[in-house]
């Protein structure tokens, strides 16, 4: 996976490529992709459905459900708690699942030079390296 320009990343004190390929980081990406795609899917179906009905089923959207509340207005209102629930759920998953995974990936990074897995480790580790990684 040699990206051209990796000269630059080598100049940094962190071995980005190794972290990117670490199992912890892969797990983080997978978990994040799952929750993001789920939420975007729900938005696409719910909001997309609302738009399509607003465009092509206007007779249906005009119908009154109770009092002055039309189908259109009720559907539009339903999008608001949907957005709230999705935001809260995403933040919970981030706090409980994604952030711990990210921390483990960062710890993996901190371990790398010491355990000698780092391909380019020439022993030129500035002392502040660990500070930055664990921040």
């Amino acid at each position, binding site marked *: 996976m040699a990206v051209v320009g990796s000269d630059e990343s080598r100049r940094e004190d962190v071995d*980005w490529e190794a972290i990117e390929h670490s199992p912890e980081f892969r797990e983080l990406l997978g978990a994040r992709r799952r929750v993001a795609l789920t939420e975007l899917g729900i938005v696409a179906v719910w909001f997309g459905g609302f738009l399509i009905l607003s465009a092509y089923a206007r007779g249906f959207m005009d119908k009154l459900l109770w009092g002055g509340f039309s189908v259109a207005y009720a559907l539009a209102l339903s999008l608001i708690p949907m957005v709230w629930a999705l935001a809260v759920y995403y933040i919970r998953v981030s706090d409980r699942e994604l952030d711990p995974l990210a921390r483990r990936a960062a710890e993996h990074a901190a371990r790398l030079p010491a355990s000698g897995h780092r391909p380019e480790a020439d022993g030129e580790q500035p002392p502040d390296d660990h500070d930055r990684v664990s921040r």
Partner: protein
Amino acid sequence: MSPFVFAAGVKALPLVVFAIVISITLGITYWASRRTKTATDFWAAGRGISSRQNGFAIAGDYMSAAAFLGVAGLIFLAGFDGYITGVAALVSFIPVLVLLADRMRNAGKYTMADVIAFRLRERPARTAAAIGTLAVAAFYLLAQLIAAGALVEALAGLSFPIAVVVTTVFMLCYVLFGGMLATTWVQIIKAVLLLIGVGTMVAFLLVKVSFDPGEILSQAATKSGEGDKFLGPGLFFHKPLNTISTGIAFALGTAGLPHILMRFFTVRDARAARGSVAWAVLLIGIFYVMVSLVGFGSRAVLGTSAVAEVGKSGNLAAPLLAQSLGGGNNAGGDIFFAVISGVAFATILAVVAGLVIAASGGVAHDLYNSVIKHGQATERQEVMVGRIAAVGVAGVAIVLALLAGPAFNIQFLVGLAFSVAASANFPALLLAILWRRFNTTGAVVGVASGLIASVTLIILSPAVWPGPDHEGGPFPLSNPAIVSIPLGFLGCYVGTLLGSPEGQRSYDELRVRAETGIGSEGSGVPADDVRVPAEGSGVPA
């Protein structure tokens, strides 16, 4: 508005409220100016904004005059269709949250371009991103300024040119002296005032109908002359595809609005960036429910006879409703009218300030420092150029607004801003973060095609071609997003295939930084720039 009108039509009471608003915001600016020293202070408020404060500020950016007066007015005129952009704008925060918010905070410094250009060749990629930033900021700023001039003219009786200049001068004070800190706090206070103001209107309305909101809707339908059709879609967007295209533009546009994305750099860390989205959607959700009631309520209370009074785009529906709810043509009505006008004025000032800060970052941080000075400019130079850029942007905006005049169709400018944001900025930003193969040529071609497609299609649309509101342009839709967003992504893809994958830093680095926050810009003390720009990386293709 009998007791408080001067001979020349200048209304004293709204001006008093405007003066109160201005003195509060200038007080904030003075306080903020003493804490604004570094570039991080100027563009990112020292990264010391809490997630709740940032949530209020983001909500404030969203609750612009277009979202308050515009949405209420459109509902007054055309019923439910007016509500669709409001709901779409709220939905847009889910893509922002799950795709961008925390990654922006982790990988960026002051601007959207920081993230787009991170692993690409600095000069061409940053130039493209800065052009995207400036285009959106310019169209949006121009729309807001024209709206400001027309509104202040209608609300307080000042002439359009004076209103535009006064608005711009006060907004510039916040930006020049108080930077992002003042802009953020002005935005927060305005958000609170606006929620209280709109909430009071809704409370008055609900008392009128004995707390049965359905009654507001029924009466609005009766008074509209359209019957139940008024409560469903189709009266404003006649063509079905217009509904869909506008909805998509607003649902994805947020993810490319530079002044909103910039707010994620003002908080401590990625977690606070996510939290601020939760606060923002809570407030915006409540706000839009209330605005819909104000919109339908204005029709129910004012009836059809007010159609001539509210103006072509209905912008005066909400203030006129306040007048009526306060008691009509007496002191109570005049006071409520003046307070709501003052809140609307505060809204305009705050949103315009945010746009100018974003544009100054695009000029000073992206174009001046990164492109012209190869990242070697000192922080003082960067901030100084930022202030000069703010004055320059404001000056250009004043001239354009005065040339356009109060009758200019701003609806198409707002549509254009959202369309460019969704078609030029969003694809490049998303692919820069998520697509390993994405390269500099892809970013340049993508931004160019999204921008050109949006501008061209808007010019060919019925709103502009051959004259305003003519139903027969070469391009049939009033908002081009449904075509221009795919063209933006296609440009990114084709450009990537044509270009070569040389960049200054690796995709691995961007990815790891964005997801984990390793090496992200610290809060408080401005850390030494961890991300040293590569020398000799700036040869354009």
